């Protein structure tokens, strides 16, 4: 299989990971979640409140604007980095002082929110059916019961992959529509102790590229 030289190059340089924003007021929970996610090859950012989560998301947005104005002239690595910082999933505790996980969910999924398409998963130590349906109705992808386990993270896999298929750039050429047909699924397996990493790459046509191909993340199955 012939790879465009730039593609192979960036693939070597960058190990793309899913970026998860974890929100919980409990330090123990944050530490646990961070470990679970790192074990699943995700990049994790932890914050201790809904307010901080919104602050962080806004910060990323303003950074992306900075990057995108220079995109045409900046090196591939900077473009990758803009995508690299982007949050692919928000995992939030339900009961938090101040802004609850539910409040955060509503804010993210709000009409006109620039974060509407980021999947949100709500976690709780309490199994309250009305709470669960409230969150699902508000657009949560999953409701997970604590304490979380590695097997719970497997449930999140489809949501993470879904977030990557979403177009993240405004530039859409005819190549883009055709690219779905030309999508090459390349499954490479790497050994990382006992874990198997599966990477799925969406490769554009191999002509000289104006856009860099998106390299999707590595997931532990």
């Amino acid at each position, binding site marked *: 299989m012939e790879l465009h030289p730039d593609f192979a190059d960036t693939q070597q340089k960058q190990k793309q990971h899913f970026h998860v924003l974890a929100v919980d007021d409990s330090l123990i929970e944050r530490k646990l979640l961070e470990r679970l996610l790192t074990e699943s090859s995700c990049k994790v950012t932890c914050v201790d409140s809904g307010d901080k989560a919104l602050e962080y998301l806004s910060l990323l947005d303003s950074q992306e604007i900075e990057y995108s104005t220079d995109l045409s002239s900046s090196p591939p690595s900077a473009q990758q980095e803009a995508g690299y910082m982007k949050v692919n999933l928000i995992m939030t505790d339900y*009961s938090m002082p101040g802004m609850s996980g539910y409040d955060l969910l509503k804010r993210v999924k709000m009409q006109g929110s620039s974060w509407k398409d980021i999947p949100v998963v709500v976690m709780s130590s309490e199994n309250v059916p009305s709470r669960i349906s409230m969150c699902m109705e508000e657009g949560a992808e999953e409701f997970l019961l604590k304490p979380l386990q590695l097997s719970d993270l497997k449930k999140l896999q489809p949501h993470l992959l879904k977030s990557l298929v979403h177009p993240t750039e405004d530039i859409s050429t005819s190549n883009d529509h055709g690219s779905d047909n030309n999508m090459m699924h390349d499954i490479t397996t790497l050994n990382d102790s006992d874990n198997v990493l599966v990477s799925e790459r969406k490769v554009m046509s191999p002509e000289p590229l104006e856009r860099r191909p998106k390299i999707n993340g590595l997931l532990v199955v």
Partner: protein
Amino acid sequence: MDVMIQLQRQLREHSAFLRKEGYLDDQFEQLQKLQDESSPDFVVEVVSIFFDDSEKLLNNLAKAVEQKAVDFKQVDAHVHQFKGSSASIGAKRVKNVCIEFRNYCEAQNIDECLICMQKLQFEYSVLKNQLEYLFRLEQQIRAAGV
């Protein structure tokens, strides 16, 4: 090494004891599974955070239940937090006392709450001793293996 074999046996027996007596449940095992070369002290780190957290919580709880006019909502909030953290590390007995405690908070039964407070302090200190012993054994095994 005789010492090594003995230590490992002690560790096995102590771990089995903790499981059997309900001090720890499956969740503790999950924590141990998350420990590896990339995170070799994970369990000790998490449990240390738990100890710090718990001591603060118990202090706050003790103050809250000793008030003339007990704010049951506040007490419940502390217990809820304690329940969450104990569940997260697999501290089964502590968690169960928390569940009982919350029920009495809801019923606003101060006498039973005070009893739960004592039970909680007791279960927590027993657990702390048990875990510290466990970690000491592990440390000795590591040292003996060098």
